[in-house]
């Protein structure tokens, strides 16, 4: 007997496999990289880190090359710091000198501290350099004549002129006449271009492009020069400069010992929506304080006022300032000068009011009869206050006295002064005669006293 096999238990049925999950559709990539922020931050950090080594030296090199193009050089000791993102340049011990034969020459400008906020977007919108705010403190400058007599920065082009013999007034005339001619030439060209567009200035190939050696076959075109500019237009929206010293072309009492200059929309080339204003408070070495206020409206209109309340007349008569025009009179005294002028186009209108006191004239030998005669009249005033109004006219580049104010003086203060002097002399003469009569007739003393009382009553 065999044992019955044990009953076979049915094998456990494996559970049916779970249905496979349908693969998720691939996520469509978006147009913007989600990690771009991190990438940009990394890039920005790299750029910021590279500033002192790459961007700052490059930008400061650009500043130096621009100055060099204008015939100036920034000293190596100048400390300039540039913040590209803020568009701000800060500087310390900034010194700019003239470039003479490739070497630094006379110092033109120095500033202990300098801050310039550049309007980056506005500047990029055109070929302009627009500075929102320019502040310089502890500044000094010098416009002393060069050995040939010409003045840095403001000498107009011209040959055959002995600048050392040109006084300030003539210098101003030459400079403003050159500016006038230049402007008229530009206006003529603009008019021609309007009539004939083919005469518009063409971009010119730059022969001094920086990669001329590495890439000699290539050409780079520079933007055509604007109607009245040689380089980028510079506009300073807010200007504040204060300093301690500003040398003028010659060593005169007008040399400035401290100054504060403020301005709005300061520029040479003006746009239609800009009104330039400039005020200067100057303290001079020997000409007292001088306040100047200038306004330039768009177009060719403007006003200027200048006040010099304590101006020694000797300062005005300095040969460097007014040539021989006043020097021959040997004038001395103190003037309170109030000058106001306005111009429209090139036509100038203005008034100059001088209130002079303690005026004396000591003409030089050989000064001529006119000077001697003037000295006789003026010295007879014995320093009395004299108001002398003058009217100025002519043109901006050649101002002249349209009314010397002599009539006004005779009618006004000079007349009174002369009258006073004559009265005094007449009184002295009358008193002498009375004294003589009294010596002869002592009984007349009572009549004199009564007459004196009567005069006193009349004066009241």
């Amino acid at each position, binding site marked *: 007997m065999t044992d019955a096999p044990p009953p076979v238990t049915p094998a456990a049925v494996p559970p049916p496999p779970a249905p496979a999950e349908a693969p998720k559709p*691939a996520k*469509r*990539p*978006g*147009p*913007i*990289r*989600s990690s*771009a922020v991190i*990438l*940009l931050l990394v*890039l920005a950090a790299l750029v910021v880190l590279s500033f002192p080594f790459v961007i700052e030296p*490059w930008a400061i090199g*650009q500043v130096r090359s621009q100055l060099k193009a204008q015939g100036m050089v920034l000293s190596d000791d100048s400390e300039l710091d540039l913040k590209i993102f803020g568009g701000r340049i800060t500087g310390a011990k900034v010194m700019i000198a003239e470039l003479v034969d490739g070497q630094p020459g006379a110092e033109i400008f120095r500033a202990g501290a300098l801050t310039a906020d550049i309007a980056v977007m506005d500047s*990029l*919108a*055109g*070929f302009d350099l627009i500075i929102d705010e320019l502040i310089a403190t502890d500044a000094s400058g010098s416009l002393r004549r060069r050995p040939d007599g010409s003045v840095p920065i403001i000498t107009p082009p011209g040959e055959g002129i002995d600048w050392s013999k040109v006084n300030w007034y003539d210098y101003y005339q030459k400079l403003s006449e050159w500016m006038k001619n230049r402007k008229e030439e530009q206006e003529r060209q603009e008019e021609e271009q309007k009539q004939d567009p083919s005469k518009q200035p*063409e*971009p010119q190939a730059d022969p001094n*492009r*920086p*990669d001329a050696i*590495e*890439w000699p*076959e*290539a*050409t*780079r*075109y*520079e*933007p*055509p020069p604007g109607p009245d500019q040689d380089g980028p237009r510079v506009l300073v929206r807010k200007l504040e400069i204060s300093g301690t010293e500003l040398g003028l072309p010659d060593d005169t009492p007008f040399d400035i010992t401290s100054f504060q200059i403020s301005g709005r929309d300061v520029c040479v080339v003006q746009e239609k929506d800009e009104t330039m204003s400039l005020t200067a408070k100057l303290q001079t070495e020997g000409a007292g304080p001088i306040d100047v206020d200038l306004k330039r409206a768009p177009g060719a209109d403007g006003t200027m006022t200048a006040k010099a309340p304590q101006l020694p007349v000797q300062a005005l008569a300095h040969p460097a300032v007014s040539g021989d025009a006043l020097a021959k009179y040997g004038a001395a005294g103190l003037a309170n000068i109030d000058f106001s002028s306005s111009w429209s186009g090139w036509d100038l209108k203005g008034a100059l009011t001088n209130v002079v006191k303690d005026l004396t004239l000591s003409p030089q030998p050989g000064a001529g009869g006119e000077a001697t005669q003037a000295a006789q009249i003026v010295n007879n005033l014995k320093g009395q206050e004299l108001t002398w109004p003058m009217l100025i006219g002519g043109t901006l580049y050649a101002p002249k006295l349209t009314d010397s104010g002599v009539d006004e003086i005779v009618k006004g203060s000079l007349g009174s002064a002369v009258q006073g002097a004559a009265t005094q002399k007449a009184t002295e003469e009358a008193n002498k005669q009375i004294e003589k009569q009294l010596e002869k007739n002592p009984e007349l003393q009572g009549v004199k006293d009564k007459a004196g009382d009567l005069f006193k009553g009349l004066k009241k």
Partner: protein
Amino acid sequence: MVYFTIKTLKKFFKIFNSLAAPWQVFLGTLLGTLIGFLPIWPPAYGPSPLGLILVFLIIVLNCHLGSALLFFGLSWLISKALAGPAVLVGEQFEGLARWASTVPFLHMSLWSHTGYLGLTLIGAACALLFAIVMWRFTIYFRTTLRDRLMANKRLATVGKVGGNTILMRVVCWFFDI
């Protein structure tokens, strides 16, 4: 050098088998080629706004960075070789160069320089060409070629493809299949 070339080639072919969408490859190739040809910061002239904008776009836009970098390098090398012809091209567009000198953005981007203008124009043409080719080939690879290669690889694995086994393995290695 050979190793570098092989690695670069592998990176190039890997683009087609990447996870990037074809339009990303297109954009990466386009922008990469452009920044390879266009000046970004030539030492003589300083930063070029257009070049910097393109770099910014490569970072921000979701393009395929691999193709952008690869075509940047490739185009930069080509641009060095084409410096002479670029001037000839630029001179043909002298009017454009003169006009660009009056537009500050273009002037600063060196379009007024006949050499760089020529490179820019060649770059624009090449960028479009390369980008379209890469885009079309990516689509072709992913819809047709990849399946064939994978099938051939399977066959090669079981020894069904006689003489082309090594070649097939090399091709698949390049395409990262």
